[in-house]
């Protein structure tokens, strides 16, 4: 039984610049993302998380090693791997419906077809009654719902999530984590999330990897049960309050602190 992974990184390294001034962002990353999983990449800023996601998106080429999508080398962006950003990624001159329908417009789907295709998505993310609102009139949380719905409208195999909830307040963020989890579970898509929020990573991920500060290396890997259990109907608040949940969070905190301290010692020496 062999399943072709959706995404793979093999001894993947990325340097910015060349020669003496080259800066290693990622160092020998090995990662396999299986279909239907939710992979969270956790790391401090400067750990190359965004670089890794950009390589999977096809926006950056690896310096060494390989990045594969379904066994094939990634060389350009594609709607198979749609990305959601923290901000500035929507088209403010369009209303909510037209933003969500944007990937379909790019494929030449006519207006009627677009409307029909996006209505279920708008309902799923709770935006049905805002379809005709210009996106710039929406709050940050609502805008991120539009971003998620738009990425799903492209019907990608993998959702690449570049800290999509990073700019939101705590309450809205928790709310949207639930929306994100439901979308992932219902669509049966694969998701790769980068974040520096431990709680968010533990809540959402089926698989979690921790990156060290620059150059980014994988320093820990976890398999986590919480998101599957919430998707299966358990109460999110109860799951978040469990001792196991807290223990994993504490362990991750310890790993991150250890590597941050290591980086500081290195600077002093």
């Amino acid at each position, binding site marked *: 039984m062999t399943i072709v992974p959706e995404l793979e990184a093999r001894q993947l390294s990325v340097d910015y610049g060349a020669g003496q001034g080259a800066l290693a962002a990622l160092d020998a990353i090995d990662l396999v993302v299986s279909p239907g999983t939710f992979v969270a990449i956790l790391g401090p800023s400067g750990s190359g998380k965004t670089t890794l996601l950009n390589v999977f998106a096809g926006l950056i080429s690896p310096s060494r090693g390989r990045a594969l999508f379904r066994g094939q080398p990634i060389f350009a962006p594609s709607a198979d791997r749609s990305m959601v950003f923290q901000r500035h990624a929507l088209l403010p001159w369009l209303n909510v419906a037209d933003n969500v329908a944007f990937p379909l417009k790019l494929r030449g789907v006519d207006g009627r077809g677009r409307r029909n295709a996006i209505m279920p998505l708008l309902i799923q993310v709770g935006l049905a*009654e805002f379809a005709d609102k210009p996106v710039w009139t929406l709050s940050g949380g*609502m805008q991120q719902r539009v971003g998620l719905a738009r990425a799903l409208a492209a019907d990608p195999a993998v959702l690449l999530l570049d800290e999509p909830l990073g700019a939101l307040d705590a309450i809205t963020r928790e709310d949207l984590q639930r929306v994100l989890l439901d979308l992932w579970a219902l669509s049966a898509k694969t998701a790769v999330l980068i974040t520096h929020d431990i709680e968010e990573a533990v809540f959402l991920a089926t698989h979690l990897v921790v990156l060290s500060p620059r150059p980014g290396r994988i320093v820990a890997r976890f398999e986590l049960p919480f998101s599957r259990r919430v998707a299966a109907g358990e109460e999110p608040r109860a799951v978040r309050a469990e001792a196991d949940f807290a223990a994993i969070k504490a362990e991750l905190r310890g790993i991150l602190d250890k590597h941050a301290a290591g980086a500081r010692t290195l600077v002093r020496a």
Partner: protein
Amino acid sequence: MTTELFVIEHGLPERITEQAPRRRIRIPRSLLFLGGSALFWLGVWWALAAVQVVPPLFLPTPSAVFARFVSVTASGYADATLLQHAGASLFRVLTALVLAWVFAVPLGIGMGVSPAIRGIFDPVIEAYRPVPPLAYLPLVIIWFGIGEEAKILLIFLAIVPAIALSTASGVRSVPVERINAARTLGATRWQVLAHVILPNALPEILVGTRIGLAVGWSTLVAAELVAAQRGLGFMIWTASNFLVTDVVLVGILSIAAIAFVMEFTMRWLERRLTPWKDKQ
């Protein structure tokens, strides 16, 4: 004034603010100031003309200028009515504006997208932009004569830098996330240009157009000094040669009034077409 809508979703309220301008009908303060200022300076003018600090030949009273305005509108001056003079001037400026748009918007996009194109055109535009059009008017006449084309060309040259440079800056100001997101949603390079970069640059293109229009309009008098038969600049120039100061004043005030209307129309268009500007 804003109204707030609450959406209950997953148990917690999320706010969206909606712009709902519901102004009571009353005269805005700015308009009151504008009217007050106009009345004040009209009064000063009247007083100066009435006590004849300078001879009426040089400073006619407002009522004399108004009477002249009526007669120039009805029966004309220098073989054309005020409307015909203004029409000829507007035709030149608007033709130059359309040509400048057709030329400068693609150029600005090229300059914004490609460092090579920017490298070639930027120094040229930056070098001639600060030169007053009157300074290169003689060269335009030597090369293109004194016909209508030369006048339009002079105004065109004055407008192009404003539109090209603001288009280029609008293109360069597109957030990289916006482009990358579109690419991972399946957009080709041309689709990114058409659906992301161009709409994103629209606010700055409109600002460039407004500035270009103002520059073009102020270049008008210079363009019409040379062998024109019609136009507000020509009317002013002819009248000044015969010391008909009231016609000069009618011409100047007409130019100011039209510039004022153009400025406000452009600002209205900006608000209308790009309400999302600065609100991203």
